[in-house]
Protein backbone atom coordinates (compact mmCIF):
# COMPACT_ATOMS: atom_id res chain seq x y z
CA UNK A 1 0.00 0.00 0.00
CA UNK A 2 1.58 3.27 -1.10
CA UNK A 3 1.63 6.73 0.43
CA UNK A 4 -0.77 8.00 -2.22
CA UNK A 5 -3.34 5.37 -1.34
CA UNK A 6 -2.96 6.13 2.38
CA UNK A 7 -3.40 9.87 1.80
CA UNK A 8 -6.45 9.27 -0.39
CA UNK A 9 -8.09 7.18 2.33
CA UNK A 10 -7.29 9.75 5.05
CA UNK A 11 -8.39 12.77 3.07
CA UNK A 12 -11.45 11.26 1.38
CA UNK A 13 -14.38 13.59 2.02
CA UNK A 14 -16.92 12.56 -0.63
CA UNK A 15 -19.78 10.74 1.08
CA UNK A 16 -17.98 10.83 4.43
CA UNK A 17 -19.47 11.63 7.84
CA UNK A 18 -18.68 14.79 9.81
CA UNK A 19 -16.47 12.66 12.05
CA UNK A 20 -14.44 11.42 9.09
CA UNK A 21 -14.08 14.91 7.61
CA UNK A 22 -12.93 16.13 11.03
CA UNK A 23 -10.44 13.26 11.16
CA UNK A 24 -9.12 14.32 7.75
CA UNK A 25 -8.81 17.98 8.81
CA UNK A 26 -7.10 17.02 12.08
CA UNK A 27 -4.64 14.77 10.30
CA UNK A 28 -3.86 17.29 7.57
CA UNK A 29 -3.36 20.00 10.21
CA UNK A 30 -1.08 17.64 12.13
CA UNK A 31 1.10 17.02 9.09
CA UNK A 32 1.33 20.76 8.36
CA UNK A 33 2.26 21.50 11.99
CA UNK A 34 4.92 18.79 11.90
CA UNK A 35 6.38 20.39 8.77
CA UNK A 36 6.24 23.78 10.47
CA UNK A 37 8.22 22.37 13.38
CA UNK A 38 11.02 21.60 10.93
CA UNK A 39 10.84 25.15 9.51
CA UNK A 40 10.88 26.52 13.06
CA UNK A 41 13.99 24.49 13.91
CA UNK A 42 15.71 25.94 10.83
CA UNK A 43 14.47 29.40 11.86
CA UNK A 44 15.94 29.32 15.35
CA UNK A 45 19.09 27.59 14.09
CA UNK A 46 19.97 30.83 12.31
CA UNK A 47 20.96 32.12 15.76
CA UNK A 48 24.09 30.03 15.37
CA UNK A 49 25.02 32.29 12.45
CA UNK A 50 24.78 35.41 14.56
CA UNK A 51 22.16 37.82 15.85
CA UNK A 52 22.04 39.83 12.63
CA UNK A 53 21.12 36.75 10.58
CA UNK A 54 18.37 35.81 13.02
CA UNK A 55 17.04 39.38 13.06
CA UNK A 56 17.00 39.49 9.26
CA UNK A 57 15.08 36.22 9.25
CA UNK A 58 12.57 37.66 11.75
CA UNK A 59 11.95 40.58 9.43
CA UNK A 60 10.53 38.12 6.90
CA UNK A 61 7.89 37.05 9.41
CA UNK A 62 7.05 40.67 10.27
CA UNK A 63 6.19 41.38 6.62
CA UNK A 64 2.63 41.04 5.18
CA UNK A 65 3.58 37.60 3.85
CA UNK A 66 4.69 36.70 7.35
CA UNK A 67 1.28 37.72 8.70
CA UNK A 68 -0.47 35.53 6.14
CA UNK A 69 1.85 32.71 7.20
CA UNK A 70 0.88 33.35 10.86
CA UNK A 71 -2.82 33.27 10.00
CA UNK A 72 -2.48 29.97 8.13
CA UNK A 73 -0.45 28.52 10.98
CA UNK A 74 -3.03 29.68 13.52
CA UNK A 75 -5.83 28.08 11.50
CA UNK A 76 -4.07 24.71 11.45
CA UNK A 77 -3.06 25.00 15.11
CA UNK A 78 -6.60 25.74 16.29
CA UNK A 79 -8.20 23.06 14.12
CA UNK A 80 -5.69 20.45 15.25
CA UNK A 81 -6.10 21.47 18.90
CA UNK A 82 -9.90 21.70 19.03
CA UNK A 83 -10.52 18.54 17.00
CA UNK A 84 -7.72 16.82 18.90
CA UNK A 85 -9.46 17.57 22.19
CA UNK A 86 -12.67 16.05 20.80
CA UNK A 87 -10.69 13.07 19.60
CA UNK A 88 -8.91 12.60 22.94
CA UNK A 89 -12.22 12.50 24.80
CA UNK A 90 -14.02 10.04 22.52
CA UNK A 91 -10.91 7.92 22.01
CA UNK A 92 -10.81 7.46 25.78
CA UNK A 93 -14.37 6.14 25.58
CA UNK A 94 -15.93 9.29 27.06
CA UNK A 95 -19.11 10.99 25.83
CA UNK A 96 -19.52 8.46 23.02
CA UNK A 97 -23.30 8.83 22.94
CA UNK A 98 -22.96 12.58 22.66
CA UNK A 99 -20.03 12.65 20.29
CA UNK A 100 -21.85 14.55 17.56
CA UNK A 101 -22.70 17.34 20.01
CA UNK A 102 -19.12 17.28 21.25
CA UNK A 103 -17.83 17.49 17.68
CA UNK A 104 -20.14 20.41 16.91
CA UNK A 105 -18.87 22.14 20.07
CA UNK A 106 -15.27 21.51 18.99
CA UNK A 107 -15.93 23.09 15.58
CA UNK A 108 -17.74 26.04 17.17
CA UNK A 109 -14.87 26.61 19.61
CA UNK A 110 -12.38 26.32 16.74
CA UNK A 111 -14.23 28.87 14.61
CA UNK A 112 -14.46 31.30 17.53
CA UNK A 113 -10.76 30.94 18.28
CA UNK A 114 -9.95 31.32 14.58
CA UNK A 115 -11.79 34.63 14.34
CA UNK A 116 -10.26 35.98 17.56
CA UNK A 117 -6.79 34.86 16.54
CA UNK A 118 -6.99 36.28 13.03
CA UNK A 119 -8.22 39.63 14.39
CA UNK A 120 -5.33 39.72 16.88
CA UNK A 121 -2.77 38.79 14.21
CA UNK A 122 -4.02 41.28 11.60
CA UNK A 123 -5.02 44.24 13.73
CA UNK A 124 -2.88 44.03 16.83
CA UNK A 125 0.36 42.38 15.67
CA UNK A 126 0.00 43.74 12.12
Amino acid at each position, binding site marked *: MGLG*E*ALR*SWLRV*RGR*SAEHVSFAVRRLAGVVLALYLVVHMVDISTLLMGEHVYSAFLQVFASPIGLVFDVVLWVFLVLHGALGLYSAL*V*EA*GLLLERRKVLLAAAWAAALLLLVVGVVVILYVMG
Partner: protein
Amino acid sequence: MKVRLVVRRWKEGWRAPRYDVFEVEADPSESVLDLVERVSLKLDPTLTFEHACHHGVCGACGMVVNGVERLTCVTRVGDVARNGVILVEPLHGFKVVSDLVVDKSRMFSRYPDDTRTLERVAARVEKLWDCVECGICYSACPVACSYPSYLGPSVLAWAFHRAVEEGMVPAPVASGSGVWSCHAAFDCSEKCPVNFQPGEKIMRLRRLLLRGAVEVV
Protein backbone atom coordinates in the same frame (compact mmCIF):
# COMPACT_ATOMS: atom_id res chain seq x y z
CA MET B 1 -36.25 6.18 -15.18
CA LYS B 2 -33.16 6.10 -17.37
CA VAL B 3 -30.04 5.29 -15.41
CA ARG B 4 -26.45 5.52 -16.48
CA LEU B 5 -24.70 2.81 -14.48
CA VAL B 6 -20.96 3.41 -14.31
CA VAL B 7 -18.98 0.40 -13.09
CA ARG B 8 -15.34 0.30 -12.08
CA ARG B 9 -13.86 -2.73 -13.82
CA TRP B 10 -10.60 -4.52 -13.19
CA LYS B 11 -9.55 -8.08 -13.86
CA GLU B 12 -6.33 -9.93 -13.24
CA GLY B 13 -3.81 -9.08 -15.92
CA TRP B 14 -5.17 -5.62 -16.60
CA ARG B 15 -2.63 -2.83 -16.14
CA ALA B 16 -5.22 -0.40 -14.81
CA PRO B 17 -8.90 -0.31 -13.93
CA ARG B 18 -11.41 1.20 -16.33
CA TYR B 19 -14.94 2.54 -16.02
CA ASP B 20 -17.69 1.00 -18.18
CA VAL B 21 -20.96 2.82 -18.77
CA PHE B 22 -24.27 0.97 -19.16
CA GLU B 23 -27.46 2.78 -20.11
CA VAL B 24 -30.37 0.95 -18.49
CA GLU B 25 -34.04 1.47 -17.76
CA ALA B 26 -34.76 1.17 -14.04
CA ASP B 27 -37.58 1.46 -11.57
CA PRO B 28 -36.65 3.94 -8.81
CA SER B 29 -37.78 1.44 -6.19
CA GLU B 30 -35.64 -1.45 -7.37
CA SER B 31 -32.28 -2.11 -5.80
CA VAL B 32 -28.88 -1.20 -7.15
CA LEU B 33 -28.02 -4.90 -6.96
CA ASP B 34 -30.96 -5.67 -9.26
CA LEU B 35 -29.51 -3.20 -11.72
CA VAL B 36 -26.02 -4.68 -11.56
CA GLU B 37 -27.45 -8.16 -11.89
CA ARG B 38 -29.49 -7.16 -14.95
CA VAL B 39 -26.44 -5.65 -16.62
CA SER B 40 -24.52 -8.84 -15.91
CA LEU B 41 -27.31 -11.04 -17.29
CA LYS B 42 -28.28 -9.02 -20.33
CA LEU B 43 -25.51 -6.64 -21.32
CA ASP B 44 -22.15 -7.93 -20.11
CA PRO B 45 -21.84 -11.46 -18.74
CA THR B 46 -18.21 -10.81 -17.79
CA LEU B 47 -19.23 -8.34 -15.10
CA THR B 48 -18.52 -10.01 -11.76
CA PHE B 49 -20.04 -9.20 -8.38
CA GLU B 50 -21.09 -10.97 -5.19
CA HIS B 51 -24.61 -11.51 -3.94
CA ALA B 52 -26.69 -14.08 -2.15
CA CYS B 53 -29.71 -13.26 -0.01
CA HIS B 54 -31.02 -10.09 -1.68
CA HIS B 55 -32.49 -8.84 1.61
CA GLY B 56 -29.66 -7.37 3.68
CA VAL B 57 -28.71 -10.42 5.73
CA CYS B 58 -25.74 -12.14 4.08
CA GLY B 59 -23.51 -9.08 3.68
CA ALA B 60 -22.15 -10.26 0.32
CA CYS B 61 -23.19 -7.34 -1.87
CA GLY B 62 -21.36 -4.46 -0.17
CA MET B 63 -20.13 -1.94 -2.75
CA VAL B 64 -19.28 1.75 -2.95
CA VAL B 65 -22.23 3.50 -4.58
CA ASN B 66 -21.66 7.11 -5.62
CA GLY B 67 -18.84 7.35 -3.07
CA VAL B 68 -20.73 5.78 -0.17
CA GLU B 69 -20.42 2.20 1.11
CA ARG B 70 -23.77 0.42 0.93
CA LEU B 71 -25.39 -3.00 0.85
CA THR B 72 -26.64 -2.76 -2.72
CA CYS B 73 -29.52 -5.20 -2.22
CA VAL B 74 -31.23 -2.78 0.19
CA THR B 75 -30.23 0.41 -1.63
CA ARG B 76 -32.93 1.78 -3.92
CA VAL B 77 -31.94 3.21 -7.28
CA GLY B 78 -34.13 6.28 -6.78
CA ASP B 79 -32.41 7.11 -3.48
CA VAL B 80 -28.86 7.16 -4.81
CA ALA B 81 -28.99 8.13 -8.49
CA ARG B 82 -27.57 11.61 -9.01
CA ASN B 83 -28.80 13.16 -12.23
CA GLY B 84 -29.51 9.64 -13.39
CA VAL B 85 -25.97 8.45 -12.76
CA ILE B 86 -24.93 5.66 -10.38
CA LEU B 87 -21.23 4.95 -9.97
CA VAL B 88 -20.53 1.52 -8.53
CA GLU B 89 -17.07 0.57 -7.24
CA PRO B 90 -15.67 -2.33 -5.19
CA LEU B 91 -15.18 -1.83 -1.46
CA HIS B 92 -11.97 -0.06 -0.46
CA GLY B 93 -9.49 -1.64 1.94
CA PHE B 94 -9.62 -5.10 0.35
CA LYS B 95 -7.75 -6.63 -2.58
CA VAL B 96 -9.93 -6.57 -5.66
CA VAL B 97 -10.37 -10.04 -7.12
CA SER B 98 -12.38 -9.07 -10.19
CA ASP B 99 -14.58 -6.05 -10.97
CA LEU B 100 -16.81 -5.61 -7.89
CA VAL B 101 -15.59 -8.71 -6.06
CA VAL B 102 -13.08 -8.23 -3.23
CA ASP B 103 -11.13 -10.66 -1.08
CA LYS B 104 -12.43 -10.21 2.48
CA SER B 105 -10.08 -12.71 4.08
CA ARG B 106 -8.35 -9.97 6.10
CA MET B 107 -11.60 -9.65 8.03
CA PHE B 108 -11.89 -13.36 8.76
CA SER B 109 -8.39 -14.48 9.60
CA ARG B 110 -6.69 -11.85 11.69
CA TYR B 111 -5.74 -13.81 14.77
CA PRO B 112 -2.23 -15.27 14.76
CA ASP B 113 -3.41 -18.64 16.08
CA ASP B 114 -5.48 -20.00 13.24
CA THR B 115 -7.47 -22.21 15.59
CA ARG B 116 -9.07 -18.99 16.84
CA THR B 117 -10.02 -17.35 13.59
CA LEU B 118 -13.07 -15.20 13.59
CA GLU B 119 -15.04 -17.76 11.61
CA ARG B 120 -14.25 -20.63 13.94
CA VAL B 121 -14.94 -18.72 17.13
CA ALA B 122 -18.04 -17.13 15.66
CA ALA B 123 -19.36 -20.57 14.83
CA ARG B 124 -19.79 -21.37 18.51
CA VAL B 125 -21.28 -18.04 19.52
CA GLU B 126 -24.04 -16.06 17.93
CA LYS B 127 -22.78 -15.11 14.48
CA LEU B 128 -20.90 -11.91 15.26
CA TRP B 129 -23.93 -10.71 17.23
CA ASP B 130 -25.64 -8.39 14.76
CA CYS B 131 -22.75 -7.96 12.29
CA VAL B 132 -23.43 -9.27 8.77
CA GLU B 133 -19.69 -9.37 7.92
CA CYS B 134 -20.16 -7.24 4.82
CA GLY B 135 -16.80 -5.46 5.15
CA ILE B 136 -18.34 -2.03 4.71
CA CYS B 137 -16.71 -0.85 7.96
CA TYR B 138 -13.26 -1.70 6.58
CA SER B 139 -13.95 0.18 3.38
CA ALA B 140 -15.18 3.21 5.30
CA CYS B 141 -12.29 3.24 7.79
CA PRO B 142 -9.29 5.44 6.84
CA VAL B 143 -7.01 3.39 9.07
CA ALA B 144 -8.07 0.01 7.67
CA CYS B 145 -7.57 1.41 4.15
CA SER B 146 -4.05 2.65 4.87
CA TYR B 147 -2.71 0.18 7.44
CA PRO B 148 -2.96 -3.44 6.23
CA SER B 149 -2.01 -4.89 9.63
CA TYR B 150 -4.92 -3.20 11.37
CA LEU B 151 -7.36 -5.81 12.66
CA GLY B 152 -10.29 -3.69 11.56
CA PRO B 153 -13.58 -2.44 12.97
CA SER B 154 -15.79 -5.55 12.90
CA VAL B 155 -13.15 -7.84 14.39
CA LEU B 156 -12.47 -5.37 17.20
CA ALA B 157 -16.16 -4.85 17.85
CA TRP B 158 -16.52 -8.61 18.07
CA ALA B 159 -13.61 -8.63 20.54
CA PHE B 160 -15.47 -6.07 22.65
CA HIS B 161 -18.39 -8.47 23.01
CA ARG B 162 -16.03 -11.26 23.94
CA ALA B 163 -14.34 -9.01 26.50
CA VAL B 164 -17.66 -8.16 28.11
CA GLU B 165 -18.84 -11.77 28.23
CA GLU B 166 -15.59 -13.56 29.03
CA GLY B 167 -13.47 -10.84 30.63
CA MET B 168 -10.57 -11.35 28.24
CA VAL B 169 -9.30 -10.41 24.80
CA PRO B 170 -6.61 -11.93 22.55
CA ALA B 171 -3.28 -10.05 22.73
CA PRO B 172 -3.45 -8.77 19.12
CA VAL B 173 -6.63 -6.90 19.99
CA ALA B 174 -4.81 -4.90 22.69
CA SER B 175 -1.78 -4.26 20.49
CA GLY B 176 -0.73 -1.49 18.13
CA SER B 177 -2.56 -3.17 15.28
CA GLY B 178 -5.67 -3.52 17.42
CA VAL B 179 -7.78 -1.02 19.32
CA TRP B 180 -4.97 1.53 19.67
CA SER B 181 -4.84 2.11 15.92
CA CYS B 182 -8.39 3.44 15.69
CA HIS B 183 -8.48 7.21 15.25
CA ALA B 184 -12.15 7.92 15.81
CA ALA B 185 -13.22 8.65 12.26
CA PHE B 186 -16.43 6.73 13.09
CA ASP B 187 -17.37 6.16 9.45
CA CYS B 188 -17.47 2.44 10.29
CA SER B 189 -20.47 3.15 12.53
CA GLU B 190 -21.99 5.72 10.17
CA LYS B 191 -21.90 3.38 7.18
CA CYS B 192 -22.71 0.10 8.96
CA PRO B 193 -25.96 -1.18 7.42
CA VAL B 194 -27.06 -2.92 10.64
CA ASN B 195 -26.01 -0.27 13.17
CA PHE B 196 -23.47 -2.58 14.80
CA GLN B 197 -21.57 0.49 16.01
CA PRO B 198 -18.02 -0.84 15.70
CA GLY B 199 -16.46 2.56 16.40
CA GLU B 200 -18.22 2.96 19.71
CA LYS B 201 -17.40 -0.63 20.68
CA ILE B 202 -13.71 -0.12 19.95
CA MET B 203 -13.67 2.92 22.22
CA ARG B 204 -15.54 1.05 24.96
CA LEU B 205 -13.02 -1.78 24.68
CA ARG B 206 -10.22 0.74 25.04
CA ARG B 207 -11.85 2.01 28.21
CA LEU B 208 -12.07 -1.53 29.59
CA LEU B 209 -8.38 -2.04 28.80
CA LEU B 210 -7.38 1.29 30.35
CA ARG B 211 -9.26 0.39 33.54
CA GLY B 212 -7.70 -3.07 33.61
CA ALA B 213 -11.18 -4.57 33.53
CA VAL B 214 -10.29 -7.24 30.95
CA GLU B 215 -7.46 -9.72 30.79
CA VAL B 216 -5.19 -9.82 27.76
CA VAL B 217 -4.49 -13.47 26.84
